[in-house]
């Protein structure tokens, strides 16, 4: 059984985001880029499934500019067996990514496709659902626990929903998207970083996969959230009530 994991290169979780002066997007020049934390969790889960003997190979896929190879190397250093890079400098929206992934699934024929539930840069939370739709596979999103039964070809997925925990049984092949509490990803150790250097990364272009990159979405403007105004000290309860009534209009 083969597991495919999608990993995205995003602005590092700990970096303070700055909006470009021309408001076309956020600053990514000279900014630390890392693997999306949810994708790390997805990869970790795939590796654990492989280590428990339910899978024989983990393939990591990343899409975007050439630096995505660095993110793939991180994935390989964590333990993925090989990488696939879809080279594209165009902006990739979730539907394009889902179409590219569908094309790759048709080439690689994985039994399980694991993705992060969302990427921390655009917070779309759409790709997993879209690819499941395109492939017509069952989907277990926001997974907080995954158990694979190889014999029955079934994956049992716990998902965190508003009412509590929902448990789904998915027939394989299936799509799983990972939530924060699923696992704690491992670190890349030096021996594995060295080994990762010789692992293969195959390169595709969207043309190779016969996917046209276009979008019905247009970004008009990106702006920072309004700055929080400084608070004021009130001198009496009466003043507070007055402000709540007449300025804040909440009572």
């Amino acid at each position, binding site marked *: 059984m083969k597991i495919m994991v999608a990993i995205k290169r995003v602005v*590092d*979780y*700990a*970096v*303070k985001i700055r909006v470009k002066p021309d408001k076309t997007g956020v600053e990514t020049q*000279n*900014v*630390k880029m*890392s*693997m999306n*934390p949810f994708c790390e969790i997805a990869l970790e889960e795939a590796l654990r499934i492989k280590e428990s003997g339910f899978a024989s190979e983990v393939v990591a896929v990343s899409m975007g500019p050439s630096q995505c190879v*660095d993110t793939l190397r*991180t994935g390989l*250093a964590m333990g993925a067996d090989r990488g696939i890079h879809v080279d594209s400098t165009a902006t990739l929206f979730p539907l394009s990514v889902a179409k590219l992934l569908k094309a790759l699934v048709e080439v690689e024929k994985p039994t399980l496709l694991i993705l992060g539930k969302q990427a921390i840069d655009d917070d779309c939370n759409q790709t997993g659902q879209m690819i499941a739709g395109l492939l017509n596979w069952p989907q277990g999103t926001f997974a907080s626990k995954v158990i694979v039964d190889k014999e029955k070809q079934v994956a049992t997925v716990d998902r965190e929903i508003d009412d509590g925990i929902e448990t789904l049984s998915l027939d394989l092949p299936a799509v799983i998207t990972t939530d924060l509490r699923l696992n*704690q990803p491992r*670190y*890349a*150790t*030096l*021996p594995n*970083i*060295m080994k990762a250097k010789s692992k293969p990364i195959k390169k595709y272009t969207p043309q190779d996969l016969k996917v046209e990159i276009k979008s019905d979405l247009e970004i008009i403007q990106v702006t920072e959230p309004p700055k929080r105004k400084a608070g004021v000290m009130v001198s009496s309860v009466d003043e507070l009530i007055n402000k709540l009534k007449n300025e804040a209009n909440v009572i």
Partner: protein
Amino acid sequence: MVNCNWKATFRFITHSPKSFFQRRCIPPSRNPTFLPSASTSEFLCLGQRVFPFFNSLSNRVDITEGCIGMPSAVLRKCYGSTAGLVQRNPKYSTLNDEDVSYFEGILGKKNVIQDEERLVAANTDWMHKYKGSSKLLLQPRSTHEVSQILKYCNSRCLAVVPQGGNTGLVGGSVPVFDEVIISLSSMNNIVSFDKVSGILVCEAGCILENIITFLDNEGFIMPLDLGAKGSCQIGGNVSTNAGGLRLVRYGSLHGNVLGLEAVLANGTVIDMLKTVLKDNTGYDLKHLFIGSEGSLGIVTKVSILTPPKLSSVNVAFLACKDYIICCWTDQNCFNTCDVLMELKRLEGKLLQEAKRKLGEILSAFEFLDIQSMNLVLNHLEGTRNPLPTMHNFYVLIETTGSDEAFDKQKLEAFLLHAMENELISDGVLAQDINQSSSFWHLREGIPEALMRAGAVYKYDLSIPVDKLYNLVEEMRTRLGNVANVVGYGHLGDGNLHLNISAPQYDDKILSQIEPYVYEWTSKHRGSISAEHGLGLMKANEILYSQSRETVQLMASIKNLMDPHKILNPYKVLPHSFSS
């Protein structure tokens, strides 16, 4: 982010209600023979009543059993180690109502604090080891106000203690008896910043972390970074010549501080607030104020050269089998030429070039032993061993440079070589900032873990790198199983933090440690205070690291600048020299 936990605890401890401090403190019953020979006679001839530090507190024990759910080990930490016995110098005046009204006249009522709760916090150091009994806390807002305060105190012979963030580890920032506390916290403005030269001028009360945040927005960094950054203030950092984590890269504050403004004991304002890198006009007196722990004057403003922020930071957390290897790795890192020579067989000029290129990206070289690692893993929530197994030694290497791909390649090449030659047995390389922070947390969290583990005797020593860990091993043999001896520190600077952790403070343990540690360090021509300063804890031990003549000259300088000895008394210089 990772620091949050630590900071929260820190704030909690700093701002705990007064009941926290009102427990009975066990007065240390020190045997005078453990005092260093230089000052023994001085102590013995005192003759009369000798006050333990906490005398003032021991009469208010009432209320507070089981106050706020703190572990009892922390509550019992009311113990001054070395120099346990000092007598209040009777020549100092006692504060009276007229003094208070005078200060209120200068500063306004709001900034003259007599509130007991706030005084308890200001009287106690953050380890709860040293407690004074000051009745007055002053919060000047300008250099002029500091000057007026000192002028008055000098004329009245009122002793004062300047206080910044009160994060010192040697009892230098809290009163010993009833000294008036002058807090610089309200002087927290950034005066100017030159984006071209990177020269920052700010007031002494600026909190280090706020300066770091300010500079970050401007694309610069502080040449100084330390665990207490959320509370410590730049004036205190300069006055104690704080070292910290980046010293190996950016050097000490003696190099980075370009100028300062200080107020002398008699109120004279000395303006040395230079914003130029080079200035050879006479004696460079600013250095007298850097590291003199407020005993020669109060630093009110500083001018600091800040380096530009570089985008590429890599952190590796490595495991070594034994210290010799760990220290050998260290040397290799500095003489990277060796590594490269073997790697690439480069010679001559090329080699020199490579040495420069690798040398420039190293920004921290820290180490911790397995005992330190265990403490952190056991006492700090959310920490985990980055490596699959435990190892005897860990080294944290940080590189900072301008080209991520280039730096990573360099570091990886170095690490690969080190692995191949079995200098390191395992290691991890941070893949994102979150991972870097968690590696740093393992190193920076050690003091907090030690606090939680119980009583701790802290020693901050400079020792030649090759012998540095011998002391830890010798102490371990000496103490057996009565205490947990841990060693960590800034290996790149040859700075060992020797910490001895015990369930509670115990004179027997102390007598096993001191003066042995000082004697050992002195024998190896090290320094008994690498970066923490002397404060009250080590004032009497200075002769282990400085010659009698040097200390005599220091005492003469002190005498010249502060003839009434009102500034931070009982600290820095041995009591025999300063009285």
